[in-house]
Structure formats: structure tokens, C-alpha cells
């Protein structure tokens, strides 16, 4: 099993736009293993505990992204691969998935797990793109997964808009994790100690056998031309009268002023 993981700013992070206006300032930001990827790692570990096999975690990112791999190793993953090259940086889902798919050609797997979305770029693309490039089926936004190792199939419950569906797929396949799939474990202390000593395999552009024009910023499908921090603050009208009066006033405002009733 392979799990794709990404190192992202935690959900509390205050995001500021860096000088140049096309990237964010990483100063003072705490980076973590993407929450949806935690579900993916946990699911892989549970499958391993039940059915055997190896769990390899793979990330593409700058030096700090090793921390995401260490967290996954501390949870119990067996091996870690870091795609690390300045030429790989600054890309979008198109160029990131090209590099990841190339790396996965050399790692045996029956199942690839990833998060349904990375909470930094929120693009929800890398999983399906990798599956397409590898020519395997996908089931996205999964909240329940059963693997039949003998039949080499999986049944996955995936969240649709307002209901769920159960999809059966042959293996190998890619599954993207949604909240609800499981409760991720916390890394144990011995796990953390062991993870520190584990070797992380590093792949660069040359060892991936890719051309700089295919990856990173050079290989992206579209570019971020500007970033701005929108102001969320609204000029709110706050009512403090007693409940029945406030409710009547609010209903009138919603109809008369806001025109939403």
C-alpha cells in the first residue's frame, strides 16, 4: 500500500501573502500532516494489521515536508519516500501528479490511499490525476472501505451530495479519504523514537528520470497570478433587545433590507 501525504499549514494558521503577491509567507506557520491524509495513513495501517503488507508513505515537497513523513512513520508506516528537488517546487496539481505518478511506477502497490483534499491548495485533484496517469480506477471521498484480498477487489462507500453510494472496484485502485473513514491514532512515544531513526528515501529530478520542463512551476497547467487576503468582516447590525422583539426586528430586516426572505 502507498499513502500520498502532504505537509500543510495547520487549520489555525494565519495566512499572509508574501512580497511578490504570488505565494504565502511561511513565517510563523505551523505545518502538519494534512488532516485528510491522516485518515488515509490510519486506513492503510488498519489494512496492514488485518491483511499484512507494507505501508509506504510518499510526499513531494520542500525539506520541511520530511516532518509529514516522520509523523506517518511514527504512526506505524514502514517506509517513506521524499520527492525533493527545487525543480519540483511551485507546481500545481498537474505537475505534482506527474512527479508522484512517476515515483509510484517503481513502488509495488495494490492500493493507493490519499486525502480527498489538501487543506492548503484545496484542489481535490492530485489523487484522481495520479490514478489516471497510472491507469487505475479511483474511488474518491470515501467514508468506509472493505478490501477482499482474495478476490482482489474493494468496496468503498463514497460521499455524494446528500447521500452515499457503495462502489466496487478491482485492485489496484486509488482511494481518497474523507473524514469519518476512521479515527486516526496518535503516534506512540516508541513510534516517534523509531521514526526518528528510520531512513527516508529521497528522490530528485534525475533519479525520477523527469525533465525540468514537466514538473514544478515549469510544468504547471495554470498559474497563480495574484493572491489577496479577503476581508471577512461585515458591517453587522447587532440586536440586543429581548428575544421576541429582536426576532421580530430581525425577520423584518431579512425581508425588507436584506431581501432574503
Amino acid at each position: 500500500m502507498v499513502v500520498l501525504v502532504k505537509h500543510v499549514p495547520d487549520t489555525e494558521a494565519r495566512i499572509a501573502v508574501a512580497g511578490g503577491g504570488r505565494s504565502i509567507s511561511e513565517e510563523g506557520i505551523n505545518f502538519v500532516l494534512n488532516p485528510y491524509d491522516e485518515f488515509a495513513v490510519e486506513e492503510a495501517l488498519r489494512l496492514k494489521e488485518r491483511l499484512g503488507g507494507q505501508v509506504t508513505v510518499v510526499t513531494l515537497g520542500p525539506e520541511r515536508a520530511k516532518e509529514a513523513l516522520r509523523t506517518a512513520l511514527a504512526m506505524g508506516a514502514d517506509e517513506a519516500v521524499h520527492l525533493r528537488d527545487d525543480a519540483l517546487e511551485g507546481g500545481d496539481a498537474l505537475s505534482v501528479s506527474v512527479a508522484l505518478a512517476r515515483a509510484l511506477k517503481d513502488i509495488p502497490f495494490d492500493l493507493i490511499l490519499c486525502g480527498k483534499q489538501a487543506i492548503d491548495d484545496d484542489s481535490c485533484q492530485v489523487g484522481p490525476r495520479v490514478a489516471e496517469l497510472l491507469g487505475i480506477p479511483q474511488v474518491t471521498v470515501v467514508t468506509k472501505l472493505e478490501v477482499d484480498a482474495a478476490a482482489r477487489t474493494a468496496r468503498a462507500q463514497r460521499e455524494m451530495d446528500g447521500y452515499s453510494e457503495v462502489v466496487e472496484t478491482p485492485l489496484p485502485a486509488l482511494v481518497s479519504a474523507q473524514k469519518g473513514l476512521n479515527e486516526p491514532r496518535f503516534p506512540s512515544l516508541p513510534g516517534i523514537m523509531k521514526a526518528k531513526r528510520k531512513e527516508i528515501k529521497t528522490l530528485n529530478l534525475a533519479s525520477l528520470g523527469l525533465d525540468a520542463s514537466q514538473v514544478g512551476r515549469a510544468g504547471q497547467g495554470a498559474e497563480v497570478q495574484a493572491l489577496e487576503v479577503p476581508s471577512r468582516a461585515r458591517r453587522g447590525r447587532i440586536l440586543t433587545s429581548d428575544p421576541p422583539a429582536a426576532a421580530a426586528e430581525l425577520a423584518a430586516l431579512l425581508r425588507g433590507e436584506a431581501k432574503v426572505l
Partner: protein
Amino acid sequence: MPSGIMLFAECRQGQLRKVTLELAGRGSELAAQRGEPLIAALLGQGVGPLAEALGQAGVDRVVVADHEALKDYTTDAYSRVMTDVVRAWDPAVVLFGATAIGRDLAPRVAARLGVGLASDCVALDLDAGKALVVKRPLYAGKVMATVGGFSRSPAMATVRPNVLTPAVPQPGRRAEVVEFSPRFGPEDRRTAVKELVAAAGEVVDLAEADVIVSGGRGLKAPENFRLIEELARALGGAVGASRAAVDAGWIEHSHQVGQTGKTVSPTLYVACGISGAIQHLAGMSSSRCIVAINKDPEAPIFKVADYGIVGDLFQVVPALTEEVKKLRAG
């Protein structure tokens, strides 16, 4: 030369989804600016009659792929046919709704075509060279990005439901209808939908809901969600929740609004007993009108609210439900 703007016409239970009409509305404006047709790709079984509504919504040409293998949505069959339709018509832009289906399909098609895709857009425009440029939130809406300069054609985007104005139907307007015969190989029919699992109670589609009433920890107990449901019913809306309420087991995760829940942008969002943590705001701050009901005047939710009531929700919410019913009846 790539030409035209294509949209993926998503259907549900034999009807076009609202987001499809929203794409048609904005898509026809963009197509007009480029002086090119708006094309709809309509995939399914027995979906042909929907071409009429698409024509009225401003679509110039409907490419219909009608096949039993397209009865249910499956990634394999739909990405095969959608890719083939795009290749056959060579549009400059391809648009999808950022729905469960659109988010599953669009990246797969984009990868097959080797092109870029901007996900979850909240605005679509053309730049000086009449190429697609979009706005999309990053970091759960903490940053808004302008994305353009698509390096290869077509430029692809998924667009959030409820952010574009739906097309106003023009009675009598007709689209040219073109049949497309899908071809499938064994690799196009690998997965199968085995069953549908309805959520308990009615189907909630928060992403497309026009009105959402959400409850948080301030509700104190699961049975008190009844108050939220009653207000939602009076307003004709859906029920949402904060993570605290979901984690407490008061309501299913499918109702959760926020960074690790649904991103919504209804016309009216009413937050009851929700403090307004940054992760909750991430999911709802693009709503058109935000109402907060909270007993703590310092609660951060008031900072993003258009209207707020400082008070006990157990008194305010039922009173508001009554007022809404009165207004609606009168």
C-alpha cells in the same frame, strides 16, 4: 483552433442540477464575449429531453451521449466519454460544477488531456486576450487566488454551486442537438455502483441549499436540533452544524460546515450557538447574508455576521421561527 465554451451538464434523477444552469448563465456570457458557441456535454441514459432546458438556458449546441453504460455515474465511463467529447469538439474552456461528481470527474479528464484545472472557482472571467481567468479560494478561503495563464487547451475549471447567477430560461430558444456515440473498452467499465445509501431522514445537499440554518455546541443536547430543524423548515432551508455538534454525535458529519466539512455559500446562513472558530468560518464566510444568534456578545461569529442577535438561542430561535412563519403566511 480551439473554439467554444463547453460545460458538463450534470443531471440528477432525470433533472439538470441547479449548478448546470449557473454554468450556463455565466458560460453564455463568456461565450458571447469570445464570439463563440456555448456547448453542453449531456451524458446519461434517456437524457435527451433535457436538451430543451439547456437550449432555453443559453446553450447553443447540446452534445448528447446516450448509453446504458452512462445510466449511473462511474468515473471510468464518464471520463472516457467526456474526454472523447472534448477531443471531438476542441473547446477552449471546459466547465464543471464543483459537486461530488464534478470533483471526481474533472481532474481525471484533465489528467487524460494533460491540461490544467482550477478547482472550486467562485468567479469566471476572460483576460485581455479573452482567455479564461478565475478566482478560487485557497487555505479554506483565507486567501483568494487569481488563476489564469492556462498553458494548454482547454482551460478547465470546476465552479462552486450557488456562486454564479443561474440562467433565466428564454422560452422558445432552442439548441442544436448533436448525437455522440460513445465507445467503451474494458478499462472503461471497471467500477460499479452497488448500492445507494440515503442519509437518515431527507437528503441534505448543503452545497446547493439556498438557506442553511446551523447549530453548534450552544444547543447543549441532540434533541435540541429540533429547534434548528423547525427554523430551517420555516425558511425552506437545510440543516448544518459545527464540528463540535458533529463530534458530540448530535448530528451526522454530512451536515458539518467548515474546513473539514462542507463549503457552502447560501443566500442566507443562520448560525445558532456557534462561536465562529476560524475552521467554521472557512466553510461559510462566502454566504451572501450571515445571521448569528449567540448569547456571548464577544463571539467571533458576530464579526462576520450581517445581522446578529445577542441572546439565548432557546428563546430567540423559536421566536424567529414564529416570525418567519407569520411573514411567509402574510
